[in-house]
């Protein structure tokens, strides 16, 4: 099993979600997050003074998937979240040791 964590532009969330639904992903966790990458945020002007936007708003999607689904999920996110501009985000993939459905105590891939 794999845990896929994608940091994407907020505007892309709906497209990514619909595309993942279409390939059979049945659950995900989404959070509002803030952060910066290589650009280190940017500067706006408010009331004539510089306003450092050090942490930009992003969406974090977390999905647990079986090993065979992982590549498909990654390519779907990559395709749907891409604008080609700075700040498109990142995808992190990690090995997942265990998954447990609390209601039924199922374990492993059947619990995903």
């Amino acid at each position, binding site marked *: 099993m794999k845990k896929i964590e994608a940091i994407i532009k907020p505007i892309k969330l709906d497209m990514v979600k619909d595309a993942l639904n279409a390939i059979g992903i049945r659950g995900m966790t989404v959070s509002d997050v*803030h952060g910066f990458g290589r650009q280190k945020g940017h500067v*706006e*002007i*408010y*009331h*004539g*003074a*510089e*306003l*450092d*936007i*050090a*942490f*930009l708003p992003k969406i974090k999607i977390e999905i647990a998937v079986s090993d065979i689904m992982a590549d498909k999920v990654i390519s779907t996110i990559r395709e749907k979240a891409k604008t080609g501009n700075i700040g498109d985000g990142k995808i992190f993939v990690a090995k997942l040791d265990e998954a447990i459905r609390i209601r039924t105590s199922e374990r492993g891939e059947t619990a995903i």
Partner: protein
Amino acid sequence: MNDSIIAVIWTLTCAFLVIFMQAGFAMMETGFTRAKNAGHTMAMNMMVFVLGVLGYWICGYALQRGGEGFFLSGAASDASIIMIFLSQVVYLNIALTIPTGAMAERWTFKSFVVYVFFIAMFVYPLYASWVWGGGWLSQLGGNFGIGHGVLDYAGSSVVHMVGGVTGLAGAIVLGPRMGKYRANGTPTAIPGHHIPMAVVGCMVLFFGWFGFNAGPALADGGLRLGVIVVNTMLAGVAAAVAAMCYVWFMYGKPDLSLITNGLLGGLVAISASCAFVSPVGAIVTGLVAGVLCCTSVFFVERKLKVDDPVGAVSVHGVCGAWGMISLGLFADGTYGDGLNNIAGMVKGLFYGGGLQFVAQVIGVIVNFVFVLAVMYLFFKVLDRIVPLRVSEEVEFEGLDQNEVSVTAYPDFSITKTRR
């Protein structure tokens, strides 16, 4: 109804409009400050009115009127003139509430309470008596032949400069908010938490300003009433347009926060000259005020390095001074016969009346020096007895729960990371 009753009703109606300006200030100042201090900023805006009325009742009113009427007793309580107290105290309260914007987000409530009594009982009444109470500034014409003496129709200097300069003194003594200046001394922005509320506050002030400027209009027959309200409108909109264009040109976007500041700057400026100038004069007064207000905001923040969260020093202090001078420039000689017992119409520099310009400049200088010196010393001394500034922890947490025992938005988590 006879004319005197009409005058009473008009004066009081305008006074009630000016009372409503307190709501405008409360919304504007609170909107332009952070959510964690919203309760505290609201508390100051409410209590400045309450405490101010009391202080003015004790001795401020009497000082302004040359020593009669302490506690509104004696002749001052006569049924035919007691309403003058109400029509005057609302102007006082506008002056008092201005510094709460410049000193917001870091001021202890204890020292704030002492401040309100001090300025309501002594400082405001003294300067007001010099200009409006027949004092020495108003008599510069009679005694030294300098035009009609210092003229200030509705309070560019008496009300707004007193408030703005006091705010400057207070903000200097308090120091900037944590995080306002980077290590290298350049300012950063600390955005307000509720811009829509601030803009509604600006609109409430615009509305109330018609009472502010037109209130005194029936004292001399009411013929200038139309001129006053139209000039007030024109100067306000001209200033907003000027501020919009200026910021747009400088930074590529019309910054809403500076447009609201600019609009108020125009209204502040026209307060002194609304009865004296032509519509063109009002427009020019407003245009200059709008640009002046923005450049002053930048100057105060970048050069003086004084942290004024809402721009009160620029809007009320600088544009107040400009308003006084605009009267000395643009008074067109159609009004003012007999003011301060000087015969003849009031003429500004551009209409052949250079001396009136001199009088206005004297008024501005005296106001700035007197108010800045007295209030700076007062805040310095007060700071030794009742500390002016909250602790670092309180400032970081927000003043709401710590200073006034409320949390303005308990159902929302208020972010502590700046972004």
